[in-house]
């Protein structure tokens, strides 16, 4: 059976919920319109279509769009040697989807990781705790509105963290971010050429200090 045939069989079962299978680079993706049914779809995929191996669950933050989060399930069948991707959207207000740990045990840690990194909860999960960050960490680091340098957090008696001293580069390239001239510390800016070295240095320091938010510098 090819992945496309399996996706169509899945669609025959849940016709009103599943989108037309899309193909890209030889991979078949099916989108589920109602995230609350993901566990049913997965259970059917495992029992009737032989998808016995859950390769991975990923999450995507579509920041600024609604629904905000997308959950991506990569399922694989050892018998047919086929791979199909299931996707469903979760809105920010709900931030919740049913767990698939009842279908595949391996979903346990994947779902914990998504909860930890993206803040999507899984209804019915046996042990939904943070996994990579520590218990009590207040943020969800993989969300797009979480800065790369990190945010300060202070959990009494557990841990503390401060933003990393990144200052926007030099090894960070973001579309729409600072251009290379702004990032390069040795660049000569024409307006500054008339100043002597000390004045130029002072100016730079002023600019740098202006960027530092005093609230971000927290001592443990």
């Amino acid at each position, binding site marked *: 059976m090819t992945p496309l045939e399996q996706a169509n069989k899945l669609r025959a079962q849940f016709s009103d919920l599943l989108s037309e299978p899309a193909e890209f*680079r030889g991979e078949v993706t099916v989108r589920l319109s109602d995230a609350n049914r993901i566990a049913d779809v997965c259970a059917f995929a495992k029992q009737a279509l032989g998808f016995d191996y*859950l*390769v991975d669950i*990923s999450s995507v933050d579509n920041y600024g769009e609604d629904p905000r989060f997308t959950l991506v399930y990569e399922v694989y069948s050892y018998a047919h040697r086929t791979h199909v991707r299931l996707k469903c959207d979760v809105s920010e207000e709900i931030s919740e989807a049913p767990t698939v740990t009842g279908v595949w045990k391996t979903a346990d*840690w994947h779902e914990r990781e998504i909860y930890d*990194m993206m803040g999507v909860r899984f209804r019915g999960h046996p042990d939904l705790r943070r996994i990579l960050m520590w218990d009590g960490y207040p943020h969800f680091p*993989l969300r797009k509105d979480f800065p790369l340098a990190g945010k300060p957090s202070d959990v009494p008696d557990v841990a503390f963290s401060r933003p990393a001293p990144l200052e926007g580069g030099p*090894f960070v*390239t*973001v579309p729409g971010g600072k251009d290379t001239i702004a990032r390069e510390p040795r660049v000569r800016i024409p307006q500054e050429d008339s100043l002597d070295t000390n004045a130029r240095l002072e100016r730079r320091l002023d600019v740098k200090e202006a960027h530092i938010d005093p609230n971000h510098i927290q001592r443990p």
Partner: protein
Amino acid sequence: MAAVQEIHVGDSAARVQQVAQAADELPDIHGEKMVLNMGPSHPSTHGVLRIVLELDGEIITKATPDVGYLHRGDEKIAENMTYTQFIPYTDRLDYLAPLANNVAYALAVEKLMGIDQQLPPRCQYIRVICCELARISAHLLGIGAFAMDVGALTVFLHTFTQREKIYDLCESLTGARFTTTYTRIGGVSRDLPPGWVEQCCKFCDEVVVNFDETEKLLTRNRIFVDRTKDIGVLPRDVAIDYGITGPNLRGSGVDYDLRKAHPYLVYNQLEFDVPVGSVGDCYDRYLVRMEEMRQSVRILRQCLKKLPDGPVNIPDGKTVLPSKDKVLSSMEELIHQFILVTQGVNAPPGEIYFGAENPKGELGFYIHSKGGGTPNRLKIRAPSFVNLSVLPVLLPGHMMSDVVSILGSIDFVMGECDR
């Protein structure tokens, strides 16, 4: 000489039941349980794994792994840089086999760009050689450390001598022993240096002798067998349910190897066998790794023999950096160079998942792209992370001393697990 007395080591499941029954029947005798913290800095946790063990006497009743001590936010970092800039970070995933990670990552990005079929044959062969060298290197360390954990220190020294030779090969190939960063999107950073093929052939001959020595030291060693046979039995259906991959899955009797099931690079043109275990205990996992190394040498020999001539990069200025002399003399190449360095390769919008058979299991990359040179989301499916999730069912019922055998036989790397 007195006859050797057979000491029966019952299977773990029966032992758990026995303990539970004893507890039901004689609640007074059933003592208080002890919670023991193993790790994060314990020699047999091979890094910073922490396991909270609940013990009844010497028998484990509950195990809770705690991971994340080495979390560096690789996935977040990847979203903020170009595809090429992320290659050095892949070195630091499974840091015992950086070459294999480089190859897997490059192939994932190339799949997204739709250029994985255009790779020149020489590049594909070189990449296969890299993957197999990485596999031998990782398994040598895995087996060496495993043997050391169960008391056979000599093996570790033997295997490390061979790993040193692989590091030398890496150094002359990539310029670095550890953090190789060898692949580029659409090729590799440099061609094989002169004399490298002969050096590698010589290594193949030498390492096989080491395999024989290791087998002599371990395979029929009474202490090693007693400490690994019927310990940590991972049944086939449990392994599949928990998404176990790599030698651990094959040790449990599942004949699944991505190099055979979904051949990438030139694996379909090479002859090799996939070893499969029958019981799924620590001993089977050791045997599978041993045989995999021999098969890797077989692949290496074929590749070194067949290695074709030709370019090592896709001859397309829009993917791979053009050569420096062209950049300095021709306008078009200068523009390509500038665009590639400042904006990165131009990947189309879309999403792909690519999994490669790495030494520890299936290393997968899910890339969600909105177009341009940076990924919108890059998820790393780390084999060690998934393989460790089985510990809560694998450890209970075993003696405290079996934990090191089981951890050694699972062969994980925390750099990859925590990302």
